[in-house]
C-alpha cells in the first residue's frame, strides 16, 4: 500500500502542541479575565465549563475527525462530506484570510513594545517633556503616559476612522518583521511548523508561571485575586453571561476557521485524536483560568497603587490648602482628617470640594478593560511600577508575541492547506505560494486600529454559521467516521 505523499507531523506531540499553540492565544489573556470580571468572578466558571463540555469539546473533536479522516484542508474535507457543503470550507478560508490580515498587526505592536523595552527608562513610564521644557506634554498629562505611548507614539491614531493618518514607518517595519517571521515558520510546511510549536506552545507557560510568582508577591495583588474569586451568582441569571461563555469557548478554541481541520489533515490516519481533543480543550481552558489569576493579581497591584496615589494627592492638597505640618496627615488618616477639617474650617473646605478626588479601591478594581487596552496599556502601567521593569517588560511582550505567533501559524495553515490540495497549485513550489501570499498580506499594513477592532467584532459571524451547519452534520460525520473505521 503506497502512502499518501502528504506531509505528516513528526510525532503526535507536535500535533498536540500545534493545537495548543493555536488555541492558547491572546484571547485567553485579554478576553477571559474581562469576562470573568464582568460576569461575576468565580461564578462565571460555571457557564464556561458547561459550555466547554457541551460545545467546545464536541466541535473540537468533530473538526479533528474531519481533518484526519479526509486528509484534506477545509475546502476539500467539506466537499468530500457533501458537495453542497464545499461553501463552508471556502467561507472558513476567507475568514482565516481576514483573520491573518489583522492578527499580525497585533504581533507588530508586540514587537514594537518588545523592542522599546530595551531602554534604561521605559518610554511609557513618564510623559515626554514639552517643547518649552517647562513640563510634560499637554496631551500626555490629560491622559496617562501609558495611554499616550500607545495611542500617540505607537499608533499615532487619527481623530476618527474617516481620517487616514498615513503609514507609520515604525509600525510598518514591525509589521514587515511579523510577516517575515511567519514566513520563516511556515516555509517548510508542517516540518518547520512542527519544530516551532515546541517553543511557541511552552514558552508562554514559563512566563505565566514567572508572572504568577511575581504577581502574587506584589503589593495589593491579593485585593485583585479576592475580587475575582468572590462570585456574584446573580449574574448567572443574565443571559448575556451564557452567551459570552459560549462565544468565548468558541473563539478560544478557534473552531470553524479551518485551522484544526488543516492541522489534523497532517496526522497519521489512525492517530488517537479523541484523547488529544479532550487534552487540548482542557489545557486551553486551564490556561484561561491560570492567566486570569495572573491578570487579577496585576489588576489588584495596579488598583492599589492608583488608590494610594489618589490618597497621597488628596493628602498633599489638604496640607497645602490648610498649611498644616507635613506629618500631621498620613495616608492612613486622610479620611479622618477630611472629616475634621470639614467641621473646623467649613468655608475653606467648601472651596476645595471641586478639587477633591473620590478615592475608592472598589472603583479602581471595577474598571475592567479588555483587548489591546488591557494588554498594552494596563499591563504596561503595572510593569512600570515593578522594580527591574525592563526585564518584566521584555518577558511579558515576548510571551504576547509567542501567543500571537502560535495562533498565526494555525491561521496561515488553514489557508495554505486547502490551496495546496488544489492540483493546479501543487505545480508551483510551496515556498513561492507562501511568498506570494505573504506579499499580498503585507498590503494590509494600511489597516489601522479601528479596522482591527471592526474585524475582530465581525469576523465571528461567518464561523457561527459554520457552527450550526457543523452540528447539523455532526451525525453524518459520525456515520462517515464509523464507515471509514
Amino acid at each position, binding site marked *: 500500500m*503506497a*502512502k*499518501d*505523499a502528504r*506531509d505528516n507531523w513528526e510525532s503526535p506531540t507536535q500535533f498536540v502542541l500545534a493545537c495548543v499553540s493555536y488555541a492558547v492565544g491572546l484571547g485567553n489573556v485579554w478576553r477571559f479575565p474581562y469576562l470573568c470580571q464582568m460576569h461575576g468572578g468565580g461564578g462565571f466558571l460555571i457557564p464556561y465549563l458547561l459550555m466547554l463540555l457541551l460545545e467546545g469539546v464536541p466541535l473540537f473533536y468533530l473538526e479533528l475527525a474531519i481533518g484526519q479522516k479526509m*486528509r484534506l484542508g477545509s475546502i476539500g474535507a467539506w466537499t468530500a462530506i457533501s458537495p453542497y457543503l464545499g461553501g463552508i470550507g471556502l467561507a472558513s478560508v476567507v475568514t482565516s484570510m481576514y483573520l491573518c490580515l489583522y492578527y499580525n498587526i497585533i504581533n507588530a505592536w508586540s*514587537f*514594537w513594545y*518588545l*523592542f*522599546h523595552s*530595551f*531602554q534604561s527608562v521605559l518610554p511609557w513610564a513618564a510623559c*515626554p*517633556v514639552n517643547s*518649552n*521644557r*517647562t*513640563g510634560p506634554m499637554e496631551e500626555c498629562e490629560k491622559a496617562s503616559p501609558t495611554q499616550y505611548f500607545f495611542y500617540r507614539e505607537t499608533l499615532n491614531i487619527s481623530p476618527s476612522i474617516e481620517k487616514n493618518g498615513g503609514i507609520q514607518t*515604525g509600525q510598518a*517595519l*514591525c509589521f*514587515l*518583521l511579523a510577516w*517575515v*517571521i511567519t*514566513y*520563516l515558520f511556515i*516555509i*517548510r*510546511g508542517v*516540518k*518547520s511548523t512542527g519544530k516551532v510549536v515546541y517553543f511557541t506552545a511552552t514558552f508562554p507557560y514559563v512566563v505565566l508561571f514567572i508572572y504568577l510568582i511575581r504577581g502574587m508577591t506584589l503589593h495589593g495583588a491579593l485585593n485583585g485575586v479576592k475580587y475575582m474569586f468572590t462570585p456574584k451568582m446573580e449574574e448567572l441569571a443574565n443571559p448575556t453571561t451564557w452567551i459570552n461563555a459560549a462565544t468565548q469557548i468558541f473563539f478560544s478554541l478557534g473552531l470553524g476557521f479551518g485551522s484544526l481541520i488543516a492541522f489534523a489533515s497532517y496526522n497519521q490516519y489512525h492517530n488517537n485524536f479523541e484523547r488529544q481533543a479532550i487534552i487540548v480543550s482542557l489545557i486551553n481552558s486551564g490556561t484561561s483560568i491560570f492567566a486570569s489569576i495572573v491578570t487579577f493579581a496585576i489588576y489588584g497591584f495596579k488598583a492599589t497603587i492608583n488608590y494610594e496615589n489618589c490618597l497621597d494627592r488628596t493628602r498633599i492638597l489638604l*496640607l*497645602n490648602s490648610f*498649611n*498644616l*505640618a*507635613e*506629618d*500631621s496627615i498620613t495616608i492612613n488618616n486622610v479620611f479622618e482628617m477630611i472629616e475634621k477639617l470639614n467641621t473646623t474650617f467649613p468655608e475653606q473646605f467648601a472651596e476645595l470640594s471641586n478639587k477633591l478626588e473620590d478615592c475608592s479601591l472598589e472603583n479602581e478594581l471595577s474598571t475592567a478593560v479588555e483587548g489591546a487596552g488591557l494588554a498594552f496599556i494596563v499591563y504596561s502601567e503595572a510593569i512600570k511600577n515593578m522594580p527591574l521593569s525592563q526585564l518584566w517588560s521584555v518577558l511579558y511582550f515576548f510571551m504576547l508575541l509567542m501567543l500571537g505567533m502560535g495562533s498565526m501559524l494555525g491561521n496561515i495553515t488553514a489557508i495554505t492547506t486547502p490551496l495546496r490540495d488544489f*492540483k493546479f497549485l*501543487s*505545480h508551483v*513550489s*510551496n*515556498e513561492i505560494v507562501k511568498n506570494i501570499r505573504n506579499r499580498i498580506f503585507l498590503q494590509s499594513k494600511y489597516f489601522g486600529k479601528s479596522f482591527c477592532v471592526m474585524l475582530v467584532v465581525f469576523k465571528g459571524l461567518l464561523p457561527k454559521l459554520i457552527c450550526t451547519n457543523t452540528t447539523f452534520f455532526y451525525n453524518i460525520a459520525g456515520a462517515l467516521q464509523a464507515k471509514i473505521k
Partner: protein
Amino acid sequence: MLGQKFQTSVRNIFFFFFFFFFFFFFASDAAEGFKVRLSIKTALGDNAYEWNRNQRFLFQAAIAFAMSHHLDLEFNVSNILVCDETPRVSFWFVVTSPDDPSRLVGKESVELAVRASRSRINNILLLNDATLEFIGVLPTLAAPVKPATPSWLIVFGVVIGIIGAGIVFLLVSTVVQKKRYVADCGLVPIVAIKSDNLSLILFGLHSSKENEVAEEEDDDEEAQMKRMAGNEGICNTSFSECDRNTQM
C-alpha cells in the same frame, strides 16, 4: 554713637512695619512676591532637618546668590525678606534692590533668576523641584536624551537580520538538496499521478527535455516513490536520500 544706633534701629523698625503692611495688603495679591513651599520630610524622610531661623537664613542666602548671579549686582541676605511662615513650611518672600532698600525688584527678574539657578538652590537646601516649590515659577526640565539611532531600531535590525539569514539559509538548502538529489540518483521526477489516497511519482533518467512538466512535492518527501527499473545512475544507497523506504 548711641544716637546713630537709635537712628538705624528706628529706620529698621520703620522699614519692617512698612514691609509688614505692604505684605498685609499685597500678600494674597502677590504683586512682587513669590510663595514658596517646602516638603522637607517628604524629601529627606528620617534625615529631615528642622525648619528654623538658620535654615531660613540659608534660603535667603541662596536667593541672594541667584539674584546676584542673574543681575550681576551685589545682593545681600538682608535684601531677601521672608514672611508669613506656616507649619507646612511655606512662606512668601520679596527681593529688595541693593541700591534702594525701599524698592522691590520686579517679579519677572526674580523668576528668571530663580529659574536660572534652580538646581543650585535645590542642592543647597537638599531638595528637588517637586519638594521645593516656587508657586508660579515653571521648572526647566532636562532636555530629553535623543541617541543618534533609536535603540529600538538597533534591536529590530538585529532580529530581522537573523530572520533574513534564516530564510535565505532555508531557501538555499532547498535548492542545494534538489541539486544533490538529481546529481546522486541521475533521476528527475517526471510525472506524479495523484488520486485520492494514492500517489505515484515516476522517475525517469535525466533527459535533455527541460520543458518536461515536473510535478514536485516537497523536496524531502522522498519517502514514498517508485523507482523506474531502468535506473542507470550511480546511487550510493548508503548515503543518498534517493530511496529511503523499502517498497513492498
